[in-house]
Each structure stands twice: as C-alpha cells, then as structure tokens.
C-alpha cells in the first residue's frame, strides 16, 4: 500500500518519459557501443593496432543477416522470433570468416614484415573504405528494413503509464548480457581465453611460453567479427539498415574503447555503456522533468522550452567530452589500458 502512496506522490508521467527516453535509449545505444568496442579492444590489445574497419564490419554483418533474411523470410515465424535474429548466428559465422580473410590478406602480411602499428591503422582505413564501397556496390544507399513483418512492441505497465520496449531492443539487451557473461567465462576459464589475455599482456612472453599466437589471433578475430556482426544486425533491426549504419558510430565506439582502457574487455563494456548513457542524458530535454515543479516556482521564473545540455545535432561531440574528462581523471582509462 505504501508503494502506491509513494507512486502517487511522484510525477509518473515524467518518470516514465525519462525511463523511455534516457534509461532504455541509453541502454540500447550503450549495448551497441559495448558489443562493438569489446571486439575492437580485444584486437587492439592483441594485435596492437586500432582497427578502424571495425564499424564497417558491423555494417557488413548486418547486410549478411539482411541477405539471409531475404533468402528465408519465413524462418522466424517458425520459432516465433524475428527472422533476422534467427539467422544472426549464421551471419556472425560468415562475418567472422570475412574478418579472418581480411586479416590474412591485408594485416598479416604487414605484421610479418614487422611494420609499425600505425601502418596497420592506415591499412585498416583502406579496408574500411573498401568494405564501404563493396556494400554500396551491391546494395546501393537506400535504407532497408530488417523486419519481414511488423515489430512487436512491449508495453510494460508502470504506475498507470507504459514503459515501451520494442522487440529488437529487448533482444539486443538480452544478447548483450548473454555475450558479456559468455565472454567473461571464456576469458577466465578456457585455455584459449587465458592465452588471449596472456598475449594481450605480453606478446613476446606468450611466444616464449609456446603459446600458439596464430591460434590466439584467429580466435580474437572470430570474437571481434561475430560480436560486431551481432551488434550491427541488432542495431539495424532497431532502426533501419543503411550502408553508413555503423560508420557514424565509429567515433563513439573508439571513444568507448579508450575510455574503458585499450585492451580491456570489461573496460570496453563499461566504456560503451558510459558513452551511451551520457549521450542520451546530454541530448535529453530536462525541461520536461522540471515541469511538475512549475506550480512551486516563483512567477518570474520561466522554464525554457528546451533544456538539453547539447543540441541533438551535436551529439557526436559528447563522446569526446567524456573521453577528455575520463582521461584527465584516469589517463589509462577506467580499467588501466595500454598506450597504443
């Protein structure tokens, strides 16, 4: 009974609005950043370069899922899930194979010759542009829908109002939680996972210990590629599929990786969520939350119509602000990362 009394005293409309606009939205975009940044940070830790093609690997994964969805549109109805989600594991496998191919073809030759990491970074820009070109060549630039049917929308009653979550958003949140737990278990329990952490710690010592570095590198690409494909697919299911789907997200993803500490998977996850939440908090219109206070405020004080910290069109600067703020506080990121 007390609960009801408490709820009644609270500005429910505003709270629900806040949950929908900030908590859910931040969790969604934060999960996408986290899934993407975790793969990028693993590659950075083990291969010592920032792979700027990572964003377009996400887009590629989403397009693979899209093609598979178009080939078997009825598959989802059989299991009661969206088709794109059902074919996603296959898209992850295909994308992982592509990343291994890209590594063999473009990065491995540079590594064996012993070029500096910056050369690999530049090479990754080349791979990025190539992927963007290939995707546009086959699919054009028009936005596409990943859904063959209408999206399910869940309305969770809360104090007489509804918290709204769409099906792809729910799938994204569940997938993120499952993959973070799985990744944690893999890195701390399995032989290859421990070898990945060892190689990220000290690649020379890993080789001296007899660790098969080729195997570790392949595993790293598989994890990075498949998580990127999943992040891209789930994001495209939530919004729509365009060739520049995740290129625009590259900067916040890189920021999330650095904020968390380069090479630190847990850092990338927390960095992703931090950047995601800060983004949504900073473009949120706080005036709406202040409205219930209006009767208590003096007459002369007007609440402006828009009280966001940052106008939506400048959202992209927010990750950099966080980046600077966190790096002043902790120069190596939240979890002590390495200097690239």
């Amino acid at each position, binding site marked *: 009974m007390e609960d009801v009394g408490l709820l009644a005293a609270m500005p429910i409309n505003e709270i629900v609005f806040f949950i929908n606009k900030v908590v859910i939205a931040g969790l969604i975009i934060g999960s996408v950043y986290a899934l993407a940044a975790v793969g990028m940070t693993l590659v950075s830790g083990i291969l010592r370069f920032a792979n700027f093609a990572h964003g377009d690997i996400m887009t590629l994964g989403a397009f693979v899922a899209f093609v598979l969805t178009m080939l078997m549109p009825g598959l989802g109805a059989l299991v009661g899930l969206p088709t794109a989600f059902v074919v996603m594991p296959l898209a992850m496998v295909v994308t992982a194979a592509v990343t291994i191919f890209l590594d063999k073809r473009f990065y491995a030759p540079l590594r064996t010759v012993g070029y500096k990491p910056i050369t690999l970074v530049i090479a990754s820009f080349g791979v990025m542009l190539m992927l963007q070109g290939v995707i546009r060549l086959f699919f054009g630039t028009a936005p596409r829908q990943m859904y063959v049917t209408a999206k399910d929308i869940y309305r969770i009653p809360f104090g007489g109002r509804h918290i709204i979550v769409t099906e792809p958003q729910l799938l994204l949140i569940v997938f993120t939680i499952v993959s973070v737990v799985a990744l944690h278990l893999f890195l701390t329990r399995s032989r290859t996972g*421990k070898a990945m952490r060892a190689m990220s710690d*000290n690649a020379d010592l890993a080789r001296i210990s007899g660790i098969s570095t080729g195997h570790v590198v392949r595993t790293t690409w598989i994890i990075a590629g498949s998580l990127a494909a999943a992040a891209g697919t789930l994001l495209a299911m939530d919004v729509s599929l365009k060739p520049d789907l995740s290129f625009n997200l590259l900067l916040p993803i890189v920021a999330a990786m650095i904020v968390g500490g380069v090479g630190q998977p847990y850092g990338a996850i927390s960095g992703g969520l931090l950047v995601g939440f800060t983004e949504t908090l900073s473009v949120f219109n706080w005036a709406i939350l202040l409205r219930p206070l209006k009767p208590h405020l003096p007459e002369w004080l007007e609440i402006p119509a828009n009280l966001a910290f940052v106008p939506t069109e400048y959202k992209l600067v927010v990750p950099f602000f966080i980046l600077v703020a966190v790096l002043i506080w902790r120069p190596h990121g939240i979890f002590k990362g390495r200097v690239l």
Partner: protein
Amino acid sequence: MSILSMRDIHAGYGGANILNGVSIDIEAHEIGVIIGPNGAGKSTTLKALFGLLTVSEGSVTFDGEDITNNNPETLVRRGLSFVPQEFNVFPTLSVRENLEMGAYVRRDDFRPLIEKIFEYFPPLRDKHRQPAGELSGGQRQMVAIGRALMMEPKLLLLDEPTAGLSPRYMGEILERVIAINEGGVGILMVEQNARQALAIAHKGFVLAGGRNSFTGTGQALLDNPEVAESFLGGGAH
C-alpha cells in the same frame, strides 16, 4: 654427451653482428653460467639460442638434434625453456594462470606440477590468485621461473634472474636454482653477480666482445687471476 652445444655462433639484430663466434657446451643436469662485461653478448647468446634472433653462422645442437633458428614453440616442446630478464610475467594474469600459460602446449593434467612449483617457491602458494603484476620483484621472478618449469624442461635458460633484487631475494633465487638443478633440470644462466653465480656453476663461460674469452669450471674461473682481475672486480679470494 652434452645436452647443449653451440658451435661458433654469429648473430645480431640486423646490421653488425653482436656475437662473433660464441661456443658453449654443457652436459645434462649441469649449471652453466655466462658472465662478462656489459655488451659482451651474454643475453644475446640466450636469445640466439632460443630462436629470438637469427643465427647467421654456426650451429646449435640440443639433446642430439640441430635446433639452429628453430622457433620458440618448437623449442618449448623439445624441452628448452627461457626466462627473459624483464617483462617475464603476465601482469594481469593470476599467479596460477601464469603457471598455466607455461604449460599451454601440454594437454595432460599438469596440476601436480603446479603443486611441485609451489614447493619450490612456497610464497607463491598463498598468492596463487593474485595478479602477478602486484607481486614484489623477487616473487615475480619466482613466477617467471615457475612458468618456465611447467614444461618440465631438460634445460632452463635464465637471463639475469637476480637483476634488481634485494640481497635477501638474490640468495633465495640462487638457492632455488640449485634446488631445481638437483631436481634434474639443466641450467644455463647469464649473471651480473659473477662471483655468486660462478660459485654454484659446474661450468662458466666468460664472454667479451661477442666471443668466448675464458671457459672452465666455475671454481677454475674463480681461481683464475686474469678472470678475477678483468671480470670479477679485484683479485681472487
């Protein structure tokens, strides 16, 4: 029969060679110690032996097989382990995980071996869950040697195992080296603390300018006035 024999090794990091004819022979279960001034090529000798830089001339035979320019993975499987001087632990991995990484190529149950390492280095037992990077210098060195022992090597290469350690730990590490050797593992180590190292050595090798300058038993080198004068800092005791 000697377990390791390096014949007239020439090697370098590209450009001029650092080693200009180093020969080293040690029998199984012996302790061999390499000493010499800075830049003599002591560490380089171990690295050349372990396939970390290319041998341009000469040959390395280990346990009856030619291992010249073999890669570390192959060497580890053949029974050769290497402990570098610096950066020789995985700092974010726990002590136990560090040891497990030493046994990466093993597919059998190596838990009894971890127990054995804890017997060699008791302080590690209590800290087995702690990240190796948080340990003291001496304990890190124990982790590093423990990691190398996980393959049950026939020959253990140690690059300045006592560098930067307090005298207490220095003595302890050298004592452990003797114990490991008595357990049946051959040792080849580079040492700055030449006197203490030669005292425990079956064989000593004095390098200068990338060449053998003196070779003999540890005691013979300690007694050699010329060696004492030039390399041990003062007359023989």
